[in-house]
């Protein structure tokens, strides 16, 4: 499989904290990579470095053959990398529909002042996307009124509306009840499969990791400490000890 993203030797220090310490990861097309690790291990920093929110002090990120290390989040998004956030980043006072239509307008570059949101040419695609992620029933709701778990899904749907080749999802199931986690991940996996989107997701629930990841990267001290298949990683003595240690 072709390599879609290659992060090499990324380093970033915040004062006395080495948030990225030679972090490297090679991602092939259509992989589902789970990033696990304790709080403060540098998982979100790694996502921020790959999506342009932070710039590394050294190292480089190459996406689809292009060096994106110094590019802005906007430029990286346009190249085909989408992301959702640990705390969903949405337009809270707008409806779910408006959030998605704005994303579709951004993708299509349709900014005519005479284009009315209610008669948006991509409305059909917006409803398909909402159905795909199981949010059709709440399309008209104001985002601020939604529970955290639903906001997470809307955040992911907004990122998917851009048709990214690769998506980073920061804790997609946090805030979702344990009984609904698998349902949410099944829905997301179907949406990702339908669009042939490669995905990297930060996750703390090992059951979710075991079921949905094709590869697992264990983060520690700002870099990958272990890497392998879910079976290898979740049966690794150090990981088991760490996992049991935090009581998961």
């Amino acid at each position: 499989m072709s390599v879609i993203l290659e992060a090499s030797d990324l380093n970033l220090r915040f004062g006395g904290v080495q948030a990225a310490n030679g972090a490297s990861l090679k991602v092939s097309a259509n992989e589902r990579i789970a990033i696990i690790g304790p709080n403060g291990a540098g998982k979100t920093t790694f996502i921020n470095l790959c999506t342009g929110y932070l710039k590394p002090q050294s190292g480089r990120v190459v996406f689809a053959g292009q060096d994106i290390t110094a590019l802005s989040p906007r430029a990286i998004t346009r190249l085909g990398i989408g992301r959702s956030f640990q705390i969903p980043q949405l337009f809270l006072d707008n409806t779910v529909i408006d959030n998605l239509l704005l994303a579709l307008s951004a993708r299509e570059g349709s900014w005519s002042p005479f284009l009315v949101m209610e008669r948006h040419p991509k409305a059909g695609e917006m409803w398909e996307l909402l159905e795909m992620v199981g949010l059709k029933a709440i399309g008209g709701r104001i985002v601020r009124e939604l529970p955290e778990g639903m906001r997470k899904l809307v955040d992911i749907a907004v990122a998917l509306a851009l048709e990214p080749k690769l998506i980073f999802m920061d804790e997609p199931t946090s805030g979702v009840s344990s009984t609904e986690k698998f349902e949410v991940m099944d829905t997301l996996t179907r949406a990702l499969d339908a669009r042939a989107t490669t995905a990297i997701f930060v996750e703390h629930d090992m059951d979710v990791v075991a079921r949905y990841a094709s590869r697992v990267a264990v983060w520690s001290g700002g870099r990958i400490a272990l890497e392998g298949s879910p079976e290898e990683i979740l049966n690794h003595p150090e990981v088991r000890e760490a996992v049991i240690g935090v009581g998961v």
Partner: protein
Amino acid sequence: MARQLVLGLALLITLAVFPLFSPWSTVILTVALCEGLAALGIMVLLRAGQVSFGHGLFFSFSAYAVAFMAAARLGHEALILIPVATAASGLLAALVGLFIVRYRAIFFGMLNLAISMVFFSLLEKLFPITGGADGKRVPRPTLAGMEFGREQFELWIFYITLGLCLAAALFVARYLTSPGGKALEAIKSNETRLEYLGVSPRKVLFGAYLLSGLLAGLGGAVIALVSGHVTPELAYWVRSGEFVFIAILGGIGGVAGPFLGALMFQIIRGYAAVYAPETWHAVLGVMLLVIIFFAPAGLYGIATGSRRKEGGR
């Protein structure tokens, strides 16, 4: 939506018939409409959470553009002077906007103020060119090639301004409900997500700033024609502050808000100046306090029953 439409129509009809019964009101209403246009420009920026304390710059720039062109006989036709002067202020807004959209909040507001005050100083100090504090007279131009007496000219300019305000309000209303308008609101609510949609917040704000400058410029061009005289006071910070005052007083939930605010402002100023000449600024201040505390959606919110500052559905 129906209430907003009724409000807009009621306002339009009242304005259209009022000067027919009260000819004395023609100039006052035209001035109110001009200030309403500038306040509409402020409202556009407020939708992005940005406030300009310097829109007197564009208002005065186009007013002086009219004065210079009329004096030089480059344009002795009102229907040419208005669009050319408006375009000139649009060009200025584009130049200023190129760097001002990099700033947010207090820096955005104060930079606008600083630039407008630089222009105010130039107007005052460059006496041989601008006429200094005395300003410049604007000779009455022709209208569609015809010469009119003062009252006829003022009446026609009023109706032209009313038409321009209607067109501007409809355009801004359309723009605010388009994806571009939603992107503009997104600057206030979540600039990070906007970046991660691949959208440049600066470009979005630049477009809004340009529109805002054009609206203020349109108001300034007309006010030069109707008053027949321009002075540096048009660029002074008090004038810019009045536009912000009017926008807040009227409310930014709908395009009728700034015009409602401008009309109320003229009414308060007119009556307070007669009945409380020493304290009319205090009357305006109390009025603004009442609005902020008890009706944050402004007169528009009171008229449409909307409690949210930005209106919304």
